[in-house]
């Protein structure tokens, strides 16, 4: 089984205790409440690290486990077999800046997490853009002023 399949199988078995590999899970980050009608208190969630973990913990909420998105009154685009992922810049731009209903993830994910998950998506779901996306590549687009110092 691939790591992704193992994770899926783990979920399917109902073993939902954070992630299977505690060593891969960084300290939980506390999140306070944003505006609107939300629950109170702080929430600490296991920090996903690998691309598969970030995908499963975040992206899958909309783009689905199979990366195929969905369609109703509007469409959540498929990431599976998506030629727009051929270049790394486009997915970096979308993840870091947001697009339409999709929020920017720079507040929730580190550059490393974004790099890992973009690499993961570009090498899974029928995509085979083998070159890994680096943290520095993400930083250049997500935080332009910082990139100037690099």
């Amino acid at each position, binding site marked *: 089984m691939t790591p992704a399949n193992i994770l899926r199988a783990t979920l399917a078995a109902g073993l939902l205790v954070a992630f299977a590999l505690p060593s891969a899970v960084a300290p939980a980050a506390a999140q306070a409440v944003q505006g609107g009608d*939300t629950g109170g208190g702080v929430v600490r969630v296991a920090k996903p690290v690998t691309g598969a973990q970030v995908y499963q913990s975040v992206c899958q909420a909309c783009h689905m486990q199979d990366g195929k998105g969905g369609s*109703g009154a*509007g469409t*959540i685009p498929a990431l599976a077999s998506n030629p727009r992922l051929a270049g790394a810049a486009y997915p970096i731009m979308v993840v870091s800046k947001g697009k*339409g209903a999709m929020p920017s993830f720079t507040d929730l994910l580190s550059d490393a997490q974004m790099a890992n998950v973009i690499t993961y998506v570009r090498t899974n779901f029928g995509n085979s853009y083998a070159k890994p996306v680096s943290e520095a590549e993400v930083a250049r687009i997500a935080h332009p002023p910082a990139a100037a110092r690099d």
Partner: protein
Amino acid sequence: MDMGARTPTRRQLLSAIAAVGGTAALYQAMTTLGHAAETQFAGPPNLSGAKPGASVIVLGAGLAGMLAAHELTKAGYKVKILEYQDRAGGRNWSLRGGDTYTELGGATQKVGFAPGNYMNPGPWRIPHHHRTLLHYCKSFGVALEPFIQFNHNTYVHSSQAFGGKPVRFNAAAADFEGNIAELLAKSVNQKALDEAVTLEDRERLLEALRGWGMLDKDYKYVSSLRTSGHRGFERPPGGGVNGAPIASPLYDFHDVLDPQVWTSMAFFMGHEMQTTMFQPVGGMDMIGKAFAKQVQQLITYNAKVTKIAQDDKGVAVTYQDTATGQTATAAADWCVCTIPLGVLGQIDTQVTDAMMAAIKAVPYSGQVKIGLEMRRRFWEEDDYIYGGHSFTDQEIALISYPNNNLFGDGPAVLLGAFAREMGAYRLAGMTPQQRIEAALQQGSVIHPANYRKEFVTGASVAWSRVPWTLGCCARWNEDTRKTHYQTLVAMDRRIVLAGEHASYVGCWMEGALLSSIDAITRLHKRALEA
């Protein structure tokens, strides 16, 4: 929390906070303590005198759309509503036994709640100052009952404090306030605040701290019958031989400083979270149904809007009947569009580039709610919790207890998750069955003895997968407000947007209604001038 002592000492307290915590603390405190204006609602719009034959097409039969249709019809317009779903109400929605819900991705849930039970996936509580909503609830005959927002006897749970065990809110909050009072009193008595506070006010502050913080004569917060009077007793007062109460021990100050404690306390200070709050009797969708009753004959259901065109003479909206696949076009002089922005941004819409940029600039949140039906009300019977919320730092964020049918026998539905941000993404990414399992596992930390044992059935709504909104609420920030908000709410020739996204009361029904009233008032004025 007892806030009764706050008012007379407000200025002194602020000065003291500034001296101890600096201006940032002062600003935060002032924000919290500041006087809140109640509402912008000045009554229903009372529009009248529409030009003969003038027409409006309303997109979306949520509260904003239905209110617009209702008021514009009264004003004399010929109104038609197009709705994507086969029901009216939009995010004002309740799920009951027998209901079926299919989310994006195709997962279908058949809700198995017992008759009379329900969950409210969207809005679920109404602040007392949401005057617009309350006004229309009253005029449309929606019965309201108290929503028990604040319950001292619920639990606070942090994975990083109190040994990971839930503690009662009243005990944690009392210990937080008592310790803060003791420390502040110590600062006063050590003359740390002499420059900031006058002698007279230092004495008044000490008196307040002793009274408010339950301090002893030495200004210490200690285990005593007095402090137990706030935080709860080891043995409560009773009658007869063993009537004498026994004081409870205090929690460790380090645990009490866990952010879960003060954020749970501060939550209720937010203007929108202050009591009194309400809910409709019988489920939140009683409001949507009451609105729909006013405009029922105007609604075309199963209408998926595919194109919104306009010119100087009018608006033409193309839509597909999702049941038959047939396409039709509806024409009108004007258009009130309440389609959520994430969906609207994908529709071929003839508006200015600036308006389209505004529509596409606002992301949506993706809260997750999970309703769990339990065989009996163990939280009432065993834990003496009647309504309110237990907060946890797990993904589910809270357990909220039902406000209806208190002391009832038979199954009851509690809210087993109101997840946000990372917690919500995690839960939303699961299958409905996995979400229930996660909610049971996490909820069992709060109620270990009964949670799994009494569980009957559950249902979940992950708003990021709701087919007709692609999200829960519009999420503005300071930058997008500055760049796009005025464009978004301005009339774009013959089209005006309305909904919670076109308001500063985002994520609330009140915002949708205030936005709608403002939009149709301006539309009517423009129509009379045209």
